[in-house]
């Protein structure tokens, strides 16, 4: 954190006047978190066994051996297929631009399929398709990301070991319904696991360490982060809103039952990156995120503070965004075990401590406005800035197992007739006008040729042959499924203008 942002924080603290008396003489409210009311405010989901729907029929299994290209197998594979990559070293970027592919590393006696970027390649695995599984790889020495998703829904990223890749270890972005579990990620310049602009996410049983941020939930909704071990990062677990991104909120995040230990690694984030402003020694950080529940974590030996909750004015290195609400509202802190946090904290926290006549360790610090936040058993912790927190009217999140969607996120369904119109108007009319020549022959001419024969026209659309010397060859429209091809043929044969 640079000196400028420290100064700004200090000004906010003093201007805000966080002088709230400590309740030394009042008997604490002791709440049992065993049993009792459970949180019911979050996303309602049925219990689901995973993020990717189970296959009802098994596709082809493609085997990739050392010396082969994984991408060649991806290019050959059809949706529904599985690609098994045998132990060995592979240096390539794999991109999956199709649906329902399971990319599985095979582990033999501890030897993994290893993707090695040699310090030269950009990303190891990119996917944009839906229903993608990526598991059991070892990924190292890439410059960009280990595994990156761009808008794929229903994904499972599991049991991968990612060491010393560049910016993010695992980064699903703009996707709905994903499971990230049992990965071991270390040595990452930004976040080891970064959930960006996504919905319905479950991050569990991962070990993240030696990175700037361990696990980051950014501009995302309905996420559960549980049973992870985040240690020896600059910051352990983060939930925040980055302003300037096109999706503006982080809401409904449960951070529970994680180990958040010894996150004191000096910040080695790239200059200008959002995480470069995180002070070393941050256990859990909530910034501008709403409805975040922190429960059941063991948070210890984080030198700045165990839990920091703040708003956007904390960070002067980030942009201004009128559409982004800067405050952390409705932070809910249930029982956590917090030991020896804040033993060597930053000057802003010390300054805030002074205003509250607080000395020594700091478990929880809240800076900036907050509406509707609550805590139970506050007397257990060394706290700053939480005087306006109420008592939570629930004690646990036991009734919420997951925010994953039962059966997965469903694709948009459009009836065949509408698909025909969409494809005709969206594509065909670029080259075919109703009367007269555009690039191809007129629709009237086509109608005369294929009257009563939509299947014949659909077959032609799928695999055109050159018929007219003075016309360019029509490109095949075989990327449309056969149902859509027939629908567009039927539609084309009945248009009348």
């Amino acid at each position, binding site marked *: 954190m640079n000196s400028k942002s420290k100064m700004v924080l200090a000004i906010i603290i003093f201007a805000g006047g966080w002088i709230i008396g400590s309740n030394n003489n009042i008997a604490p409210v002791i709440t049992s978190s065993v049993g009792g009311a459970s949180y019911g405010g979050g996303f309602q989901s049925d219990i689901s066994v995973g993020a990717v729907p189970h296959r009802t029929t098994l596709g082809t299994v493609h085997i990739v051996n050392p010396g082969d290209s994984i991408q060649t197998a991806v290019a050959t594979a059809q949706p529904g297929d599985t690609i098994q990559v045998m132990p060995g070293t592979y240096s390539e970027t794999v991109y999956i631009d199709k649906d329902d592919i399971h990319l599985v590393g095979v582990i033999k006696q501890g030897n993994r399929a290893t993707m090695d970027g040699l310090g030269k390649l950009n990303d190891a695995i990119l996917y944009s398709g839906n229903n993608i599984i990526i598991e059991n790889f070892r990924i190292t020495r890439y410059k960009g990301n280990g595994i990156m998703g*761009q808008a794929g829904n229903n994904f499972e990223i599991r049991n991968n070991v990612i060491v010393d890749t560049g910016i993010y270890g695992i980064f699903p972005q703009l996707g709905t319904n994903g499971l990230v579990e049992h990965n071991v990620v270390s040595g990452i310049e930004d976040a080891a696991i970064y959930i960006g602009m996504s919905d319905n996410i479950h991050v569990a049983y991962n070990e993240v360490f030696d990175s700037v941020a361990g696990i980051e939930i950014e501009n995302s909704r309905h996420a559960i982060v549980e049973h992870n071990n985040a240690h020896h990062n600059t910051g352990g677990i983060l939930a925040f809103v980055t302003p300037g991104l096109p999706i503006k909120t982080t809401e409904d995040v449960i951070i529970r039952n994680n180990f958040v230990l010894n996150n004191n690694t000096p910040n080695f984030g790239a200059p200008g990156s959002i995480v470069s402003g995180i002070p070393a020694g941050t256990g859990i950080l909530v910034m501008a995120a709403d409805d975040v529940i922190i429960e059941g974590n063991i948070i210890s030996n984080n030198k700045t503070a165990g839990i920091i909750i703040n708003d956007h004015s904390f960070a002067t290195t980030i942009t201004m965004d009128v559409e982004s609400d800067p405050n952390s509202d409705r932070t809910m802190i249930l029982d956590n075990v917090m030991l020896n946090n804040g033993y060597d904290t930053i000057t802003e926290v010390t300054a805030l401590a002074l205003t509250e006549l607080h000395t020594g360790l700091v478990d929880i610090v809240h800076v900036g406005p907050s509406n509707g936040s609550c805590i139970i058993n506050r007397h257990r912790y060394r706290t700053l800035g939480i005087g306006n927190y109420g008592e939570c009217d629930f004690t646990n999140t036991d009734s919420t197992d997951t925010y994953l969607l039962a059966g997965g996120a469903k694709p948009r369904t459009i009836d065949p007739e509408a698909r025909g119109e969409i494809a005709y108007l969206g594509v065909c009319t*670029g080259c075919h006008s109703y009367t007269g020549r555009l690039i191809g022959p007129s629709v009237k001419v086509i109608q005369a040729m294929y009257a009563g024969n939509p299947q014949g026209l659909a077959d032609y659309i799928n695999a055109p042959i050159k018929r007219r010397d003075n016309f360019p060859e029509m490109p095949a429209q075989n990327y449309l499924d056969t149902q859509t091809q027939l629908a567009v043929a039927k539609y084309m044969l009945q248009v009348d203008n």
Partner: protein
Amino acid sequence: MGKLIAHNSNAGVIFCVYSLFFSVFLSAPLSLAKPFFSLSDQCPPSFSLNSDNQCQLRNLYQFYDSLQDRGLGGLKTALPEHRDGFSPQQIDLGRLLFFDPVLSGDKNLSCANCHNPALGFSDGMGRSVGAGGKVSQRSAPTLWNSAFLRVFFWDARANSLEEQAVGPLFSDHEMANTPQQLIANLSQVDAYPQLFSQAFPDSGDPLIIDNIATALSAFQSSLISLNSPYDRYAHGDANALSSAELEGLNVFRSFVARCSQCHTPPLFTNQQVAVIGTPEPTGLARDIGAAQTFNAERLRGGFKVPTLRNIARTAPYMHSGKFTTLRDAAEFYTKGRGHAVPEGETLLLHWHISDPKLTDTELDRLVDFMGALTDERFIPKIPDQVPSGLLNSKVNISLVTELGEN
């Protein structure tokens, strides 16, 4: 589409060459046989006419969804919400107005002067030239796919097509008209009162500024470019991109180059303001951009992320045209964070402006990929003649070129 009854397409070419010749010498209306104008009752290609006489956009991206319905993501992702629902007549009236110099104060400039369909609906200039030869501060953005935008102008100061449309009409540096003068001038053109009545049949007094804005918006919203080689690849044609273009796509979306983090598919913009720190042309003061719009110093030098669709057609690049080629524009991002920010200038650079150290080959591939975002299949027909009879030499030259290519 609207048609000029007097001319077939061959005659159109002859007419254009002829008018070009005369336009050099004449700024008065040509005294050819008075054409008859009527507005089309058909929607442009890619639109479906519904029973309320509204044109509804259809495209293959409507097969897909997007997170939070924001129209951002990867390959098979829905587009952002769009504007449509204008009538065929409004779209066609907008087309005639768009190409008619009578809209400007001195009757010399049409919208098409700076948004020339033959130049990707831009003008090939770093900074556009308005009325009286005044050079404006910024370049003319493309109008392709503006139906999908929710913020307009480089500095993000307008929030609708209508708000955008009237901006240049009444800007001193652009078309330099006034509302009163514009209405008066249009009223004096024989065809317009009747064409406005056709396009706005429920309007008691159809020739008003709001309806001009609506017609121009209607026309702009019909400029759809979604059939590039990239789009075919996105919809599932694995062979639609060459290997060089595909390599470029993977650089583009990699987290080293990070292009797609702001130029996000399928529109290739996330419509946010970003401060990237490009240099101004020599001798020009720093353009503070969105800092003025939002009264926020943190946005100093910030501009709306532009779409990259048809980007190969709209050189030069950046808000004031500093870079002549796409290669130069791409190279800017790999020359170091803040390398072009002058001494004494303080900019809060975007976090994705990093130091990716792209190779020359990677830059070449990025240029290849951006070339695969070109699709001008739905280019509208340039009217052979506009209702005022005024000529627009620059646009007509381009028309001859276009026809020559076919």
